[in-house]
């Protein structure tokens, strides 16, 4: 298959002082101080190479600051790689950042006209496509209002619709799929599937490993500006998760040098984390709040855990998940910010998560819990397979033999039809 985009040994260095606009006075001072050559710089990307074929969906994952956005900007031809080169065949279009793709004082219609013309469409093609952009974005009512009055959801829908409907050969989407309500996300994913069937190339980044896995043919993992792995989504994502483990280990080592952190040994499962905050106890309770680790299918379950901070932290994030014996994630809850959800943090606090009805089949499960910094870059503490949960119940739910992960009720009816439908004269 022909190559749509080829990235060859690309590196990108940013001069840090360029990030804030400098006045001539400042640069004269800097020059007088003899720091001109030493102006601090950092490598956002180092020696990254890959190629994307036509019709491929190529994913890029990596943590905040790993260089994803820099890479995408270069792919779009914004800025020049410090070394190496990028070759592409055909029109590239994309949504790089949500705040500056449109001009706020112009209406949605005027803005999409600009995008269309930039994508090389003629007046007539533009007229034809405009309507499909507006209806895909569900913006009929507001299209003639200035963009600055739009909500972020409206802005995103229009940006996405304009990017994909104007038919570029290569579409670049940065983190965009994670926004928008679930229904629109679904609609976007369907649209991407058609786009792909038409032999077009898509390059995406996403924080959501699941989305990357579902969407991509090939995934590149970036870590500190370097390409550390490229392969099929399954492998790339598990590598990405391993990186998190490595980063946590690295930080533990750093912290050990300063303070003595005693590793905690557990009777079962495993535990990893820097111990800057710990989950000191976990209790599972049933409906009547009495501690137990056996519940009936469909009953309520409360997961209560104590969080202790051993070093002062402003905020943290946590996850609580229920996994079955095959390590399939039945459900996972994530709290991205304690401050937002629970107010201020105290040195010791108890968090309670209540599930009103746990509709899982009978079997053995584990509760996995994790505490993270709010950028999810490593783990403060993670309990893996340490807290077993037994669910009891029967496969017979009101006379219906039910299997799988979910133990939900189903209602069945049969409507008696005559063998031959009377024709309605059609």
């Amino acid at each position, binding site marked *: 298959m022909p190559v749509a985009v080829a990235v060859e040994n690309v590196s990108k260095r*940013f001069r840090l002082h360029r990030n804030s*606009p400098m006045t001539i006075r400042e640069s004269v001072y800097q020059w007088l101080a003899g720091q001109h050559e030493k102006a601090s710089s950092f490598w956002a990307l180092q020696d990254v190479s890959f190629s994307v074929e036509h019709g491929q969906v190529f994913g890029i994952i990596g943590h905040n600051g790993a260089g994803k956005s820099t890479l995408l900007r270069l792919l779009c031809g914004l800025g020049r790689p410090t070394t190496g080169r990028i070759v592409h065949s055909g029109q590239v279009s*994309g949504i*790089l950042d949500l705040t500056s*793709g449109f*001009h706020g004082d*112009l209406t949605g219609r005027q803005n999409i006209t600009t995008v269309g013309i930039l994508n090389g469409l003629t*007046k007539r093609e533009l007229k034809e496509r405009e309507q499909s952009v507006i209806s895909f974005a569900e913006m009929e009512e507001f299209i003639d209002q200035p963009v600055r009055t739009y909500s972020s959801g409206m802005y995103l829908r229009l940006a996405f619709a304009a990017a994909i409907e104007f038919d570029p050969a290569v579409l*670049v989407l940065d983190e965009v799929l994670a926004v928008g309500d679930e229904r629109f996300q679904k609609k976007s994913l369907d649209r991407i599937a058609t786009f792909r069937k038409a032999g077009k190339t898509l390059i995406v980044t996403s924080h959501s490993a699941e989305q990357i896995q579902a969407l991509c043919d090939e995934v590149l993992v970036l870590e500190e500006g370097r390409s550390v792995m490229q392969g099929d989504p399954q492998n790339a994502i598990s590598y990405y998760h391993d990186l998190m483990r490595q980063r946590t280990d690295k930080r533990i080592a750093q912290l050990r040098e300063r303070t003595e952190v005693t590793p905690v040994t557990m009777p079962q499962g495993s535990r990893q984390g820097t111990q800057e905050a710990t989950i000191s106890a976990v209790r599972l309770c049933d409906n009547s709040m009495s501690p137990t680790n056996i519940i009936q299918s469909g009953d309520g379950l409360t997961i209560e855990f104590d969080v202790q901070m051993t070093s002062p932290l402003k905020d943290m994030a946590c996850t609580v998940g229920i996994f079955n014996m095959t390590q399939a994630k039945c459900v996972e809850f994530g709290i991205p910010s304690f401050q937002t959800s629970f107010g201020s943090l105290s040195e010791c606090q108890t968090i309670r998560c209540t599930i009103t009805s746990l509709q899982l089949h009978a079997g053995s499960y584990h509760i996995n819990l994790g505490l993270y910094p709010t950028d999810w870059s490593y783990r403060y503490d993670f309990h893996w397979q340490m807290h077993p949960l037994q669910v009891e119940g029967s496969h017979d739910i009101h006379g219906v033999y039910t299997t799988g992960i979910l133990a939900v009720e189903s209602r069945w009816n049969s409507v008696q039809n005559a063998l031959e439908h009377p024709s309605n004269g059609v």
Partner: protein
Amino acid sequence: MPHTLELIWHLIKRDFHLRHAGSALGILWSILVPLAQLGVLTFTFGSLIRVDIPNYPAFVYSALLPWTWFSSSLSGASHLFFTHRDLLRRPAFPPGTLIIVNTLVHLLIFFLSLPLLFILMAWQERVAIWNPFTFLLLLLIQGMLTVGLSFMISTLNAFYRDIAQLVSIVLSFMFFLTPIFYRPVIESEYRTLLSLNPMVPLINAYRALLFEGTNPEWGPLMVTGGISTLVCGLGYLIYKHWLPDVVDAI
């Protein structure tokens, strides 16, 4: 190429729209502002401090219009990349287009004001018979000068915001050092200094063509033409060289 022209035309319309969105008089302001300036100059130098020039309003206006094209293009150029950040974020958009568009927008405003000049001339019972080819040549020379300087200003202002301030100071100096509201200085000890201003031969030529109805002095005009070509080329090289860093800085 037809596509580039379409893009430029679209961006010109977009610029006019942004310029006048929400104002009641809209595009009229583009004509009213230099007209008001003409009023101030005519009152000051025609009535307060009497300058003995016949048909003074038309005399000033014939030079003020091309000057306004020059000065408003350059002062607009400084912030061009910042005000159109949305376009600079688009793949496949050459930012230099904005400079061409900016120069053309102000040229159109110049054209929109031209009928007023002719009305003013007719009112004072003068009919300028002018040569359209010479006029085009003047526009071309000034256009290249403006585009070249704009390339430099827009590019450098992305790194040093001081440029915008400098440009406005230099422009206000130049306004007084260019014979817009007075006759060209012929005998002066500062003659060499004044001749450094490339706008002088241009403004003189416009006045000869539009007001006097004569041919311009070709000598100085050709020198300005040469300077304009050099400035245009140099400006483009500066722009081309720094463009990738501009994108990072914006």
